[in-house]
């Protein structure tokens, strides 16, 4: 008989797995059913543990970290509430294809099914909102399950993987071997694009009179920004992006038109409606970008490159599908790309871009546009992390992006409260860049506890709050489409208000809760309140210079300020409402 192989505890194998996968940072919040894992991590120095203040903040931080580095973000939480608090973040990562491995503690196997304290069926809860979810049922499977989890999370179309780990397995002795090979017979992601399809697509493109590229988040995920720019420059085809694709080619590039979609630019939406070839790469034609489906690019031959077969011809019927990784596909295309004669077409588009710019010239006072553009000027090398709602749409409309300035934003799920924790993840991932969190007053309050995390980790994040004292995006819809019935969108409301404003009376305008300056102070962060346009630049300059923790700037914004232009419900992209 051979000598008995050394055995280690399950929790120690988890640490081995993290090391082997190159994980240097774990976002972790302890609890009873994860305590063995935390103990194992305590006894090592290779992996840094980040302790946010809420598990939702935790997973958004891991998400921001993963989006910034392209590496797998790792979450480690306890069973029950620790696990369920991750759920929104898991769905968020799933929609935006962010690679995460979420290790959730679970009650010991003997208690599963007993409605034990802090027991939930995490795999059951997550089944439809993640890429893969599995509970470890046997100590001998642990190594393989973790290896597969990392592989599944980062390969193909990336996404979140949940590994539910019962406490007794964390304690149990077993093999110390972490497998290197992975073989999952039902999972063989295809990355290389079919050369025949690429050839077909390029021959259609090369004959086009009015072609456009539509670039989605897939180009960022594949790291194909450079190749994309080359392809555009060789062919001379104008580039339109989705929100997730913005920045794939620099937004000040002469071939860049703007964003497509509900709040896209007039020139971009018009070009999509008129083009004869729509060459789309890495977008799933989400309902926010298509407008009325029957009118979408209706005269165009549609080419669609996507790594996910299920995204092809789901919303839009595609003429030439190419399944594969964006970088692999674009690289093949570059071999067949040639300059096209498109002067008239490109001039038309750029003329419209000039004639119908997106701007906020309606107001004389302080506008979000001014703030975002000043930020661009002051921080050419930075990561911009908008929250969700008007602030996000304004960021997507006005920010100047490119290889030095990235934006990470939640495009699919749209959870308020994303910005601050995601900015923490980004700041940990990119210490050489300024990270800017932009939130509305509503969204900021959904995860403001993470100010403590940012301060504790001494992360010099610039936290901007657009305070319009309302849930602006919903309010805007109520204003345009619901007869100005502002149901539950005023955050100044107090019991004493009654229905005064609804009945046309003067708003008693009680003070806003909380006072963000005082709040920042209690977290030992400097804070400024900006009310006038001329204060924007000097205050931002001061706040950006702050080190040793976050600095907060609150901008008082008019509640009537809206995101324009807009494609009204059910209308085609070329029926944008430009003003009101």
């Amino acid at each position, binding site marked *: 008989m051979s000598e008995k192989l050394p055995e280690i505890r399950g929790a120690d194998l988890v640490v081995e797995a993290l090391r082997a996968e190159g994980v240097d940072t774990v976002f972790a919040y302890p609890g009873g059913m994860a305590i063995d894992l935390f103990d194992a991590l305590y006894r090592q120095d290779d992996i840094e543990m980040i302790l946010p203040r809420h598990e939702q903040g935790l997973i958004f931080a891991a998400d921001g970290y993963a989006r910034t580095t392209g590496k797998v973000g790792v979450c480690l939480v306890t069973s029950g509430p620790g696990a369920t608090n991750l759920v929104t973040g898991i769905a968020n990562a799933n929609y935006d294809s962010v690679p995460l491995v979420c290790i959730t503690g679970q009650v010991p196997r003997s208690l599963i099914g007993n409605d034990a304290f802090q027991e939930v069926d995490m*795999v*059951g809860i997550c*089944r*439809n909102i993640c*890429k*893969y*979810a*599995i*509970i470890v*049922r046997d100590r001998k499977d642990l190594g393989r399950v973790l290896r597969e989890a990392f592989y*599944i999370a980062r390969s193909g179309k990336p996404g979140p993987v949940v590994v539910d780990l019962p406490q007794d397995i964390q304690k149990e002795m077993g093999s110390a071997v972490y497998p290197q090979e992975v073989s*999952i*017979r*039902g*999972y063989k992601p295809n990355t290389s694009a079919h050369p025949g399809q690429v050839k077909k697509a390029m021959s259609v493109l090369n004959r086009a009179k009015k072609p456009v590229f539509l670039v989605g988040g897939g180009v960022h995920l594949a790291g194909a920004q450079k190749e994309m720019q080359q392809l555009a420059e060789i062919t001379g085809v104008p580039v339109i992006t989705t929100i997730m694709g913005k920045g794939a080619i620099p937004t000040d590039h002469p071939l860049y038109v703007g964003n497509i979609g509900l709040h896209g630019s007039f020139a971009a939406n018009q070009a999509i409606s008129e083009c004869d070839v729509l060459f789309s790469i890495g977008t799933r034609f989400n309902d926010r970008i298509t407008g009325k*489906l*029957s009118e979408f690019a209706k005269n165009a031959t549609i080419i669609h490159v996507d790594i*996910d*077969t*299920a995204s*092809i*011809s*789901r919303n839009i*019927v595609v003429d030439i599908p190419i399944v594969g990784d964006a970088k692999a596909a674009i690289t093949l295309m570059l071999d067949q790309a040639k300059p096209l004669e498109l002067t008239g077409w490109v001039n038309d588009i750029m003329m419209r871009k000039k004639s119908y710019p997106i701007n906020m010239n309606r107001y004389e006072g302080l506008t979000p546009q001014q703030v975002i553009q000043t930020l661009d000027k002051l921080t050419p090398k930075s990561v911009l992390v908008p929250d969700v709602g008007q602030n996000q749409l304004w960021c997507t409309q006005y920010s100047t992006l490119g290889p030095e300035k990235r934006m990470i934003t939640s495009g699919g799920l749209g959870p308020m409260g994303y910005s601050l924790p995601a900015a923490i993840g980004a700041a940990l991932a990119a210490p050489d860049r300024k990270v800017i969190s932009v939130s509305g007053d509503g969204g900021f309050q959904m995860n403001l506890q993470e100010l403590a995390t940012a301060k504790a980790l001494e992360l010099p994040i610039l936290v901007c709050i657009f305070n319009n004292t309302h849930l602006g995006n919903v309010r805007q819809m109520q204003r345009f489409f619901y007869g100005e019935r502002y149901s539950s969108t005023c955050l100044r409301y107090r019991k004493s208000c009654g229905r005064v404003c609804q009945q046309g009376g003067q708003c008693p305008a009680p003070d806003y809760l909380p006072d963000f300056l005082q709040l920042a102070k209690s977290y030992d962060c400097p804070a400024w309140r900006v009310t006038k346009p001329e204060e924007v630049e000097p205050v931002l300059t001061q706040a950006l210079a702050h080190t040793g923790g976050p600095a907060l700037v609150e901008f008082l914004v008019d509640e009537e300020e809206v995101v324009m232009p807009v494609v009204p419900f059910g209308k085609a992209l070329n029926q944008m409402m430009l003003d009101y």
Partner: protein
Amino acid sequence: MNRTDTDMKKRWICLFVENQTGTLARISGLFSGKCYNIDSLTVGETEDPTISRMTITLTSDEKTFEQIKKQLNRSVEVIKVVDYTDLPLQSKELMFVKINHCTAGDKEEAFRIASVFGVRVVDCDKRRVLLECVQTEKKNNTLIGLLQQNFPNRIEVARGGSVAVEAITINDR
């Protein structure tokens, strides 16, 4: 593209999946989560005990069906998806029908129907007859219709859903 009823039809999928706990929930959850209707689903172990085989029948239009196949294909637990819709098949469904409160004449009628339809009477007593029907889902539907007519509100049906395998020479679905 507008959904039309014109290409609504019965579809068949043969699915090979990992034989693990949770796989069935994952597959059925995929259908329910995306509001796809299943007509029937059967599952059982194959000659390889690590693999289960499912036969799923559903009624849908072409576009939805394409999407369903793609969604199944991208599931980690799914090893292979085979579209059986237009292939020659042998398919059978096991169905039990119990006929209650029979008179002597009713019983005679039940036995007669059984012999005409080629189904077995596997149990009976003075007032009840139990039929075991191993036929195509379609024939079972017809039989239920007939029994419903002859013995209104007196039949109890337990059916297992279609099991299908690609035919060698004879198509029977």
